[in-house]
């Protein structure tokens, strides 16, 4: 994904920085947090090298708990640690964190409303070669359905750092979905994430793309192409999927001919689902959802997989034009 070409106009100062995986930013930020705050504890289920919690583990072995390949126990233990005033970050791959341990998250994290931070890596299709068993395409739906849960999908490394710091200060259950692959920088360097606040790059009179995660960058590419063809297109980074930034959504929907959602997740129950639920009741405008169309993934490299599932600027452009009948 690091090789993906952007339009020259779209290259801002931040985009010139080397692409970086959100999980890398997580590992670094967690380490800094650990240095600053003694109440931060970290749990992992035998994937600390991949989730990058190993950086924290190396410096703070007494505050790091490797739970082995036992996600359910990891969640319960994290809940217990939080009940003594610790702020536990529990990490593994998104598919195991949210799927394998869903009932544990439901009972001891959400229903008990404990201060547990679930930060999962390897979300989405860009897990790549490991294939469908390891590609979480339903995790946002699973987490979003749970009362008390906040769901965040950062777009790049800069946003990830800001998110991790923000959730450490927030009291309550949070799910953060990170990726495996390197992603270009899209957020301004001075960006400061706030839970529930979307970031508006620009708004469009014709179409507005509501995106999250790696699709924010791809949405920006699509908007550039559309702009050149005279279709005024806005891009919004809806990194907090729950609670949605309803104010921003409502204001762009009111001025849009079509809303496009773009996410590296099933079109069922994720960002697209959330946006449709809100807009259908509050401002019913035409919506087109770009995402995984109710299927499993497969092995392949990230770019091939994104192309296969239509998670590309070209497909967004095509979808917008078709919705606008242009």
């Amino acid at each position, binding site marked *: 994904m690091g090789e993906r070409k952007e339009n020259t106009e779209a290259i801002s100062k931040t985009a010139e920085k080397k692409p970086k995986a959100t999980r890398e930013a997580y590992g670094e930020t967690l380490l800094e947090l650990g240095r600053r705050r003694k109440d931060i504890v970290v749990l992992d289920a035998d994937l600390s090298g991949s989730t990058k919690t190993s950086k924290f583990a190396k410096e703070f072995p007494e505050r790091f708990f490797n*739970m082995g390949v036992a996600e359910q126990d990891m969640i319960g233990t994290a809940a217990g640690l939080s009940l003594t005033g610790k702020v536990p970050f529990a990490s593994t791959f998104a598919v195991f964190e949210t799927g394998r341990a869903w*009932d544990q998250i439901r009972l001891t994290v959400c229903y008990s409303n404990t201060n547990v931070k679930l930060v999962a890596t390897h979300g989405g299709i860009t897990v790549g070669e490991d294939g469908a068993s390891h590609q979480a395409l339903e995790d946002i739906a699973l987490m979003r359905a749970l009362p008390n849960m906040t769901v965040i999908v950062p777009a790049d490394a800069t946003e990830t750092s800001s998110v991790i710091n923000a959730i450490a200060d927030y009291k309550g259950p949070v799910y953060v979905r990170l990726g495996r692959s390197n992603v270009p920088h899209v957020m301004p360097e001075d960006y400061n994430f706030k839970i529930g606040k979307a970031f508006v790059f620009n708004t469009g009179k014709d179409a507005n793309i509501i995106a999250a995660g790696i699709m924010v960058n791809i949405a920006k590419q699509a908007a550039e192409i559309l702009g050149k063809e005279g279709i005024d297109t806005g891009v919004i980074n809806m990194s907090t999927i729950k609670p949605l930034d309803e104010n921003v959504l409502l204001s762009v929907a009111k001025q849009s001919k079509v809303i496009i959602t773009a996410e590296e997740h099933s079109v069922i129950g994720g960002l697209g689902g959330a946006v449709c639920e809100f807009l259908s009741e509050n401002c019913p405008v035409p919506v087109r959802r770009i995402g995984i169309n109710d299927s499993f993934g497969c092995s392949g490299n990230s770019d091939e997989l994104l192309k296969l599932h239509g998670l590309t600027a070209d497909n967004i452009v095509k979808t917008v034009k078709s919705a606008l009948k242009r």
Partner: protein
Amino acid sequence: MSATTKSKINDIHELRNIAKSVRLKILHMLTNAGSGHTGGSLSAADVAVAIYFSKMNFNPRDPFWKDRDRFILSKGHAAPLLYSIMAEAGYFPKETLDNLRQIESPLQGHPCCKRLNGVEVSTGSLGQGLSVANGIALGLRLDNNPARVYCIMGDGETQEGQVWEAAMTAAHYRIDNLCAVIDKNGLQIDGPVSKVMNIEPVADKWSAFGWHVIDIDGHNMEQILKALNEAEKIKGKPTMIIANTTKGKGVSFFENKVEYHGITPTRDELSKAVVEINNG
């Protein structure tokens, strides 16, 4: 706000009387509610009473006191037992027990920590309490807090895989500020545990997982106290008390009856049961 208000009780007779009073409360509240779990509430009553009243430091007026000992009812369906003990200990007025399972009641069908202060974590979906107990124990240890953690599980509950994940964790991290109890009453919803899904040899399994195991008669108050004392002295490993109990203990016509897992006494049965408990 750091002193406990309850003085600890080590007199066997007194503890037995509390257990009687707790059993009567369980039966009354279940009869009132008309639904709930009778058998498993009665079977674990003696052990739970001993833990709360002879061992635990807590303050009903300050349920979040940071130095309190913690109690996790992993077998959440025995909620009437927990509520009866909490009423007995002074967490809330005894009249509140009449609200069991009523709409928006603090006394939910299974314990809810967000509705009732003093419940450490919500339970009900089986197999999860031991993991939470481990986490609390690890957190206390990080703070050099000498408080201890108790966790009561059902025997059928140990069929859940997560229990064995937690069993490994407790031994791996040498969690010795934790004492778990299996209320081994031998019955589960669909029948005898041995027939539904055999869990034997229970003691050998926990020993093999690295636990200090104490096998006792779970209705013998002397044995219970001795086991709890022993658990406090064990260092470097967690302790499991296997409490061999009788489901429905204290009421002859409920004892060892599979069907009394999830049904409640009628008014008539209640009157007879009260006589038996009082004479017991």
